């Protein structure tokens, strides 16, 4: 188990290196003046000079990268080109917002998705087809559009929730909950249906296995067979789906934080793209990648806990 964790962590190193390298390689490959390419044709010479200076564009890209990397390893992710504040501080102040949304959406969709999927696998028939249809629908509805519709309906029409903005948990837990409710639902809808479909398929498969029949022949109740045995055996593909969903939701925050004007990392990424603030964007990318690494690690640990065979190999 421990070797598994260590292997995963080692695997994270090339990922983080490649991702951070990407921006510098792209800058290095850009023909002509990279500063011009970033700022567009209307930029003034002073603006161009500022970009060159902050990114160190006068040096070759690998030197730039090396400088960035050594600084990053000592906890310095550079300075924002637009606000002139340290990138790290900016990221950390916005992290709780994004974490609230992503963790909330993952929890909501896991609980509801597994419940719906299990129920439809056991009941089958019309409910099963309903879950299939729902998962198609969940895939087809763009989440930012859903967010806009929810705002129009529940915030503007009915005034049940604030339309935009974020309240910190420390300030007021109840208002925090209200402020993240709609964005979490928006992000979770696709996950509920995806996880429900995965649970349903995995459960349907497990329920045809011999050991389920043997348990029945032993005289166990159907509910114990389902919860104690079938669900646990079906859990591995479901955990995989939850991991994939989490990675998707990280990207989803970019749009959903914009829709709900949430001061999180996703919204920061959009603003930084408009302002061509590459140091900040690089920082957001790095944070997201670290999030992916952590989730993949948790998924692996979950595999080990769920499957005794995986624990040993």
């Amino acid at each position, binding site marked *: 188990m421990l070797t598994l964790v260590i292997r995963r962590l080692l695997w994270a190193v*090339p*990922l983080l290196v*490649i*991702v951070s390298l*990407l921006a510098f390689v*792209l800058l290095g490959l*850009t023909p002509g003046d990279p500063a*011009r*390419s*970033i*700022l*567009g044709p209307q930029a003034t010479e002073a603006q161009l000079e500022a970009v060159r200076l902050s990114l160190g564009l006068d040096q070759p890209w690998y030197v730039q990268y090396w400088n960035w990397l050594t600084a990053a390893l000592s906890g310095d992710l550079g300075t924002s080109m637009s606000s002139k504040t340290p990138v790290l501080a900016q990221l950390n102040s916005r992290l709780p917002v994004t974490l609230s949304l992503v963790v909330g959406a993952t929890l909501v969709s896991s609980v509801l998705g597994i419940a719906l999927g299990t129920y439809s696998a056991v009941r*089958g028939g019309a409910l099963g087809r309903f879950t299939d249809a729902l998962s*198609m629908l969940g895939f*087809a*509805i*763009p989440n*930012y*559009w*859903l967010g*806009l519709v929810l*705002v*129009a309906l529940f915030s*503007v029409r009915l005034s049940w929730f604030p339309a935009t903005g974020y309240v910190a948990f420390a300030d007021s837990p109840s208002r925090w909950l209200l402020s993240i409710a709609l964005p979490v639902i928006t992000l979770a809808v696709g996950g509920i249906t995806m996880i429900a479909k995965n649970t349903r398929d995995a459960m*349907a498969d497990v329920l045809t296995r*011999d*050991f389920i*029949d*043997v*348990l029945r*022949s*032993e*005289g*166990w109740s159907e509910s114990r067979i389902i919860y104690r045995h079938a669900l*646990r*055996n079906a859990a591995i593909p479901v955990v995989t789906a939850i991991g994939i969903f989490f990675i998707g939701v*990280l*990207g989803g925050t970019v*749009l959903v934080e*914009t829709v709900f004007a949430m001061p999180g990392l*996703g919204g920061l*990424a959009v603003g*930084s*793209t*408009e302002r*061509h*603030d*590459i140091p900040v*964007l690089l920082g*957001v*990318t790095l944070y*997201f*990648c670290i999030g*992916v*690494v952590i989730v*993949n690690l948790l998924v692996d640990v979950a595999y080990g806990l*769920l*499957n*005794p*065979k995986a624990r040993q190999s």
Partner: protein
Amino acid sequence: MTTHTSVLAVPHPAKPRSAFVAALMKPVPVIAAIVLAVIVIAVLGAGVWAPYDPLANDLANSLAGPSAEHWLGTDQLGRDVLSRLLYGGRPDLGAALLVACTALVVGVPLGMVAGYRGGRIDQFLMRIVDIGLALPSMVIVLLVLAVFGNQVIMGYLALGLLLVPPLIRIIRANAIAIRSELFIDAARVAGFSDTRIVFRHILPRLVGSVLVQASLIASMGLIFVSGLAYLGFGVSAPDPSWGTLIAEGAQITRQNPALLLAAGGVLGVTVLCLGLLGDTIRDASVARWARTPSRPSRIRRRRSPGDAAGAAPESSSLLSVRELSVEYGSVEQGQTVVDGVSFEIAAGEIVGLVGESGCGKSTLARAVLGLLRGGGVSGGAVSFEGVELTTATVGELRELRGTSFAFVSQEPLVALDPTQRIGTTLTDAVRLHTGSGRREARARARELLARVRFPDPERVLRLYPHEISGGMAQRIAIARALAGSPKLLIADEPTTALDVTVQAEVLDLLRELRASEGLSILIVTHDWGVVSDLCDRAVVMYAGQVVEQSATDALFHRPAHPYTAGLLASNPSGVAGGATRLPSIPGTIPLPSEWSTGCRFQSRCPLAVEVCGQGPVPLVQSPDGGTSRCLRVDQVERDIWSRDLVRGGAR
């Protein structure tokens, strides 16, 4: 009898292409294809059908609701919403197409190379894929846009590349599956070049999965591209695109919600249709290449008929099966697979249920246990110590299971929950049946393992199913079945999956358990060795019916049905010597849909005469005191199959 309408999906030799087309020609995909075509044509021909110029302002008429002139109303600047929607599809669909093409052009060849070549290239590519799968696509695309000063086409290309890793994975898996098939080996042996094999044999079979992935990637690309446009990375201000229209629509939901709903709706419907088509192509290509179509998965469970309870007369035997019939398929279109079977088992008796695979013996055993899948008892009765099982409620059955009768299945290793230690499985069983505490149950589990001859029960209790052998697993399964001290053990081919030496051990164990605990055993087998070794009596089944039932000695000495004689003759352990080659029964066991109204064995029988086909053959007394379903029972001899008989009546 029409075999092709049978609900028991019989592998029919349909031509692949027609199965493929048939799977595509269902209402849902046809509707999805039509809707998608309508949307694409409407968008492409926007210049022809759009009622207004999408950029023409009409401030006097701003924010109008739907009307005859403006079907979907107007926006803040009085522009026609419908026209903007039609024109707005162009950038989104175009970008989605670009994204999909980028991904496919890069991903499909790489996936095929990884899957077909394997080795180093494969390892290297899979490393890259692993990293690629962990990239947060949306943020990477934003990074690319920032570096390239919002040249949005670079973002689309980056998006296409980010969708490559999952594509490589799927194409690779498919290529590996196809490569490992025999005909590819044959082509290689025949000396065809790799290129020829890839293009002639592998690529055509990948078309289905490539199309599925193409539809998936196009729909994901569409959602992504419209999202970028919504964020402002796409066409610039006055020009419409679905993403920017959603943003504009959100501003005016109070005055004219039609824009938000219509823009999101058309986007969602397009994605939905692409997804539905992808699903259909996947199902269709599975249907096209599958060797044997899978069984219909959804089958209605039927209630046991009301006459069952009254049918069973009082009997002194432990288990009594009377005229039991089992059907598979739907209630209206049922297919009988077990047909009027009767037999009894007395206390302490070991009975073998014998026949070729497909004769219904395992189904019969499962029907007795109440474990039928996709089928149901359609007639007759099963009583255990006078309690009728076919009409018992689930609760009543649970009371009896494990404590009155227990089950040992064919594949011992898959009979155990792979996530639980042997100890948990065994102590759970003990606690369920005896209600004892945890520690007592553990002690009893140790005893049970010692009972099935494990020298070190404590060690075995700590093992997981993947750490034990088949022989160990089968002894554990027997220990588990003994946990509730049942009176009857129903074992479905308990030795088939085991080595010969382990087989003997298990049979020895069963014999000993009968002697020490007075256990009755119903053992399903096709192995005469097991019957002669263990059973007091044998019930021989053919095509869903009992064809002979007799004491083991009598059966071996003088079979009373030509089928029994044939099975004995073709069984190596039954040959006493002298025969130079094993005779075997010509032909195969008929499918339930092909059962004749007369004797079901006549087409393979050396003794068959005309009268055999004329009506149902009843069970009659055989000379040695058993029963036989043969009209010529007096002519049956053990060696009828090795004699050169003129096969009258055979096909």
